């Protein structure tokens, strides 16, 4: 089922690519179109062709994007007056398709445990049909509009997958072991306060670097959390695990490596400053990390 949904994503991206190739007013239609076509192919062929072929496609996409080959087309953004009139005419009915995504996802998730992504995909199909019905517009127009938003994202749409890929390369290359070796080599982690500080700050810093607390967790828990905090200081492993992971999440709030949370919304909300979302989150992350350290220190001797 999930493969069929990936094929659907590939189809949408292929249509975006075709529209881009056909857009003669586009300043970079060949390179931009090629970028979206390659992205589409990773969805249509991923798992069916050798992974090396996908690797080559990924490198080509990064080079196309990195050297300015991916630009948006000129889109008739529609007339603000017409949108306002349509909003008045359609009334609150226009919310139904948007909310249908969440409702269908919810129902599916309740019926099929672990089916969140499939549920979301089905929710989007249902919502798309509802949107066509409510707006009485055409599928072709919906694809034009989809291209407008995907164009607005540009290469940022691919960045989350690039960074997740990087995390896996890091793991394969043993980056985690090297970081843990550095973190534990020079400090006396047998002191409780130092141990807690190295553990919590290490989780946060490691997550900032890797973009993912799940990658930091096994290394910091295996390196300090369990041997030192639990083994030497008799902390409750459940406390160490739960609060350690959250210390990592404080890092997630401030790292551009977590692109899907911190950089994609910048593009989605059309913000100038690439780090605007991180700046809005930094002063939540910092006091929260301090809370985690205090909680660890207090709860260790519960």
């Amino acid at each position: 089922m999930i493969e069929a949904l990936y094929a659907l994503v590939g189809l949408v991206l292929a249509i975006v690519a075709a529209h881009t190739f056909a857009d003669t007013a586009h300043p970079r239609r060949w390179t931009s179109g090629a970028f979206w076509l390659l992205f589409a192919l990773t969805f249509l062929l991923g798992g069916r062709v050798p992974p090396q072929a996908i690797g080559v496609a990924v490198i080509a996409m990064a080079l196309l994007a990195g050297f300015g080959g991916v630009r948006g087309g000129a889109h008739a953004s529609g007339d603000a007056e017409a949108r306002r009139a349509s909003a008045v005419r359609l009334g609150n009915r226009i919310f139904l398709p948007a909310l249908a995504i969440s409702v269908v996802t919810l129902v599916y998730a309740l019926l099929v445990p672990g089916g969140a992504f499939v549920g979301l995909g089905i929710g989007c199909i249902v919502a798309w049909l509802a949107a066509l019905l409510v707006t009485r517009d055409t599928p072709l127009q919906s694809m034009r509009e989809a291209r407008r938003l995907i164009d607005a994202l540009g290469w940022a749409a691919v960045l989350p997958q690039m960074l997740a890929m990087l995390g896996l390369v890091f793991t394969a290359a043993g980056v985690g072991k090297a970081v843990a070796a550095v973190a534990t080599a020079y400090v006396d982690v047998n002191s409780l306060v130092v141990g807690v500080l190295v553990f919590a700050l290490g989780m946060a810093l490691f997550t900032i670097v890797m973009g993912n607390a799940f990658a930091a967790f096994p290394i910091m828990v295996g390196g300090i959390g369990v041997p030192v905090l639990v083994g030497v200081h008799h902390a409750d492993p459940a406390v160490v695990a739960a609060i350690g992971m959250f210390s990592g999440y404080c890092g997630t709030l401030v790292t551009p490596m977590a692109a899907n949370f911190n950089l994609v919304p910048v593009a989605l909300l059309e913000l100038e400053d690439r780090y605007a979302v991180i700046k809005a989150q930094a002063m939540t992350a910092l006091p929260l990390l301090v809370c985690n350290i205090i909680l660890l220190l207090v709860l260790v001797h519960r």
Partner: protein
Amino acid sequence: MIHGVSLLPLLGIAVIVVGFLLRLNPMLVVLAGALVTGLAAHLDANALLATIGTGFVQTRNLSLVLVLPLAVVALLERHGLRERAQMWIAGFPGATMDRVLIAYLGFRELTAAIGLSSIAGQAQMVRPLLAPLAEGAAATEGIALDDAALARLRAHCAAADNVGLFFGEDIFVAFGAVALMHEIVKSLGYDVAPMRIALWALPTALCAFAIHALRIVLFARRLRRTRA
């Protein structure tokens, strides 16, 4: 070398940090980081390409949750979805922008805590609904948003979604992160019930809500002082 562990793979991290600090194109920075890391770890070209390709294919769900909702939202936006959201919120004079953001933060954290983390998100909820609602609430309050203030308000919408999601989902015992924590701690010799891990996520989850809600209130107060 420290304790027999090679530090050479850390070169890739240096590439990433320098690249992001210099604000070079992130796609190139990430590619360079992956190539340098792979070469430093003595992966041959074939293995490196395979690792890159496998990693990219394995994480396609990240783009699924972005592309498919956008295809729906885009058409609705053409027909006035954002405008309608602003009109709707204007009907509630008590719905100030900080109340809208805090209500959303609470909604996001609570639903994530009962396992419903995928019912909202940046593409399906924040851009089409939350941002217009917050902007509409600001307008109803009589706050004139210039470009810089509008950008900060929108960034706070994205932040409310992230904070609510992150610090809610670990309370849900069947969430993947709890299973991961359970497995790793177990592999180190301690078999802790997943329920207890989820339970000890509560203190931080409450702190996160309190801290972020307070920051939203302060942010709104500052906007009111300067832009009203």
